[in-house]
């Protein structure tokens, strides 16, 4: 089973780096979401893995096969990588019916497959079903229309679903007209004789594969129409589109089209499945429904999923790992809850979570006992107590060493032949501090940031309304949804967002006291934007 490995992937157009030195490993059977704001290079990354886009440099390995290596000059085209790709606008072929859309790719497969005697197989299927004629009769009888005639199309569809057979077998079965008193016993005997005959003649095993000296004979062949039909029915059952098989894509709703697109991608049983914002065209309710279906699909198929989205909710709920990208640079690659609990930097903290995190500027330094004293929110004194022991001096030294190393590497790189400077420079993320009166700081000079400057990250759920709370504020806005209410509290000039559960009656303008009560407060370094530690906060 494949594991996808990217090593130092670069993709640039002129001076613009869409993907900058990306290295990551997607383990087998993972559900990885590539998450980031629009234009950050996530779709480009996905298309590069699938082979629809050529990286400028780097190496991509799928399984044990190198599919792209710029230094070796390897570039295996997309059609030989054996992956599935689900496009954002579905890209269904409008001139084909749903059935043709799904089966078209299958008719083209030519691979080493076991040789099977299909006639005998079909006969045995028929025998199996004919042994329970009552069930067949029941299914067929359900399909009487108002004139008391049996609707053949519907009956065949029902038979297909009831007995997991292909439409050809179902048609044969229907043509027996069991409901009119067909003599099943003699037919069974007849079919069984046929099966026995071909078994003896061709040396078949129990699944009707040809045997040669106890081994299954394989041959390089195309798929039989029976096999194709079974495959189409199998995927259409997964996404529940059995009743639309004869329609054209234009006659389907958006959600149905998407399910057809999923079915088409699944039909050849790819072990790797790429999805490019597949849910972005759907309405909110359907999106939620499809999200569950994708999750189920991942479990059922056992394939590796790589999923591109800009919707952080989708990424959080679906993924086994989130890969956050900004400006072409990998920010963090960890399971969703890790990303939520311990974001690597200010950007990640801001991007993940809804409503988004509160940032509070703080100035101060470390005490002897390891805690960090900070002045926050114009006049409050706070003490940050890290969960694990923290040595700020050492941390800063490591940070500076890392930055220095990065600079050196960049310098070395820039001397290489053919190096192009990155036009879209990386900057420390400009976090947003909510204030009552928003200042336009685009014209003012950047403040000089020292090592005494910190940023606190407080998730909305960490704010607690508490009578004995240390922070005194006023409700600035409230959005109750029934289950929880999102409130904005004004503290001095600053605004903090909080989430409180239950249907508390909140009046705008009323005074509240707040407490920050959690051991999941994050302390960021303002200079580099990186996280220093997580811990709890004491306000006095």
């Amino acid at each position, binding site marked *: 089973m494949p594991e996808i490995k990217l090593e130092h992937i670069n993709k640039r157009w002129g001076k613009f780096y869409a993907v900058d030195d990306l290295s990551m490993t997607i383990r087998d059977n993972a559900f990885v979401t590539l998450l980031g704001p629009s234009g950050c290079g996530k779709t480009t990354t996905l298309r590069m893995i699938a082979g*629809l886009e050529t990286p400028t440099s780097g190496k991509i390995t799928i399984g044990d096969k190198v599919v792209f290596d710029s230094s070796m000059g390897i570039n295996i085209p*997309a059609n030989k990588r054996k992956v599935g790709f689900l496009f*954002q606008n579905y890209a*269904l*072929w409008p001139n084909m019916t749903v059935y043709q859309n799904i089966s078209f790719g299958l008719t083209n497969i030519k691979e080493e497959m076991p040789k099977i005697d299909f006639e005998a197989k079909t006969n045995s299927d028929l025998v199996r079903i004919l042994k329970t004629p009552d069930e067949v009769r029941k299914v067929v009888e359900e399909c009487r229309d108002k004139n008391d005639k049996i609707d053949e199309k519907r009956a065949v569809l029902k038979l297909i679903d009831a007995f997991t057979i292909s439409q050809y077998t179902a048609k044969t079965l229907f043509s027996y007209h069991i409901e009119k008193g067909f003599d099943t016993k003699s037919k069974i005997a007849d079919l069984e004789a046929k099966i026995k005959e071909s078994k003896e003649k061709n040396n078949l095993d129990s699944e009707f594969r040809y045997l040669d000296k106890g081994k299954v004979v394989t041959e390089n062949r195309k798929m039989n129409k029976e096999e194709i039909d079974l495959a189409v029915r199998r995927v259409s059952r997964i996404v529940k589109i059995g009743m639309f098989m004869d329609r054209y894509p234009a006659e389907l709703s958006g959600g149905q089209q998407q399910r057809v697109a999923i079915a088409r991608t699944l039909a050849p049983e790819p072990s790797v499945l790429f999805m490019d914002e597949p849910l972005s065209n759907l309405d909110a309710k359907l999106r939620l429904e499809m999200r569950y279906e994708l999750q189920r699909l991942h479990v059922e198929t056992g394939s590796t999923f790589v999923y591109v989205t800009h919707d952080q909710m989708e990424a959080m709920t679906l993924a086994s790992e989130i890969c956050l990208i900004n400006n072409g640079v990998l920010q963090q690659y960890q399971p969703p809850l890790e990303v939520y609990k311990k974001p690597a930097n200010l950007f990640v903290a801001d991007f993940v979570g809804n409503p988004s995190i509160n940032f509070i500027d703080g100035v101060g330094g470390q005490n002897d006992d390891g805690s960090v004293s900070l002045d926050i929110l114009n006049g409050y004194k706070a003490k940050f107590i890290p969960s694990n022991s923290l040595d700020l001096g050492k941390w800063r030294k490591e940070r500076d060493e890392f930055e220095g190393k990065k600079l050196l590497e960049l310098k070395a790189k820039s001397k290489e032949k053919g190096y192009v400077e990155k036009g879209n420079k990386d900057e420390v993320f400009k976090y947003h501090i909510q204030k009552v009166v928003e200042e336009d700081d685009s014209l003012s000079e950047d403040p000089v940031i020292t090592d005494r400057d910190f940023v606190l990250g407080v998730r909305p759920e960490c704010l607690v309304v508490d009578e004995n709370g240390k922070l005194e504020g006023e409700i600035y806005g409230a959005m109750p949804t029934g289950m929880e209410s999102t409130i904005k509290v004004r503290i001095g000039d600053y605004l903090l967002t909080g989430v409180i559960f239950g249907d508390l009656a909140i009046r705008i303008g009323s005074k509240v006291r707040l407490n920050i009560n959690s051991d999941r407060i994050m302390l960021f370094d303002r200079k580099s934007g990186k996280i220093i530690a997580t811990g709890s906060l004491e306000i006095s």
Partner: protein
Amino acid sequence: MPSIAVGVAFFILFSGEKLNLYNTYTLLIIVGTIKYIPFASRNALNSMLQLSGEIEEAAIIQDIPWTKRMTRIIIPIQKSSIISGFLLPFMTCLRELSLFMLLCTQGFILSTTLDYFDEMGLYAFSSGINLILIITILVFNALVNKMTGASLDDGIGG
């Protein structure tokens, strides 16, 4: 570009001693193609550009060979614009006189024959030929309208 100018150019080019195609269908086909290819290709090109690349990429990913992609996906989708791209210039070409006038003898094709009878004062004959032309073109026009929705009435851009 006036048709007669194109005709003159090809008359000079192809009536030398070494390369003499005067009064052959080959020459008429070459000239007709060159004169009308912009109209035909513009039509097809525009609709080709509107086709999203992902339609084909979806097929590439499934390892469908080029020929099959063309014959089963692209051409069926583009069917109407390809047919109209062919038939509309074809109809205009049918009634073309000045382009072919210098390149063949007078009885060679319908429009030049018509011109001949006209000059001779045999108006009944020329009217008959004219009727054949008009009916043929009307039939084709109706066909194109019905099959593709594109129409000569809206112009083919030239």
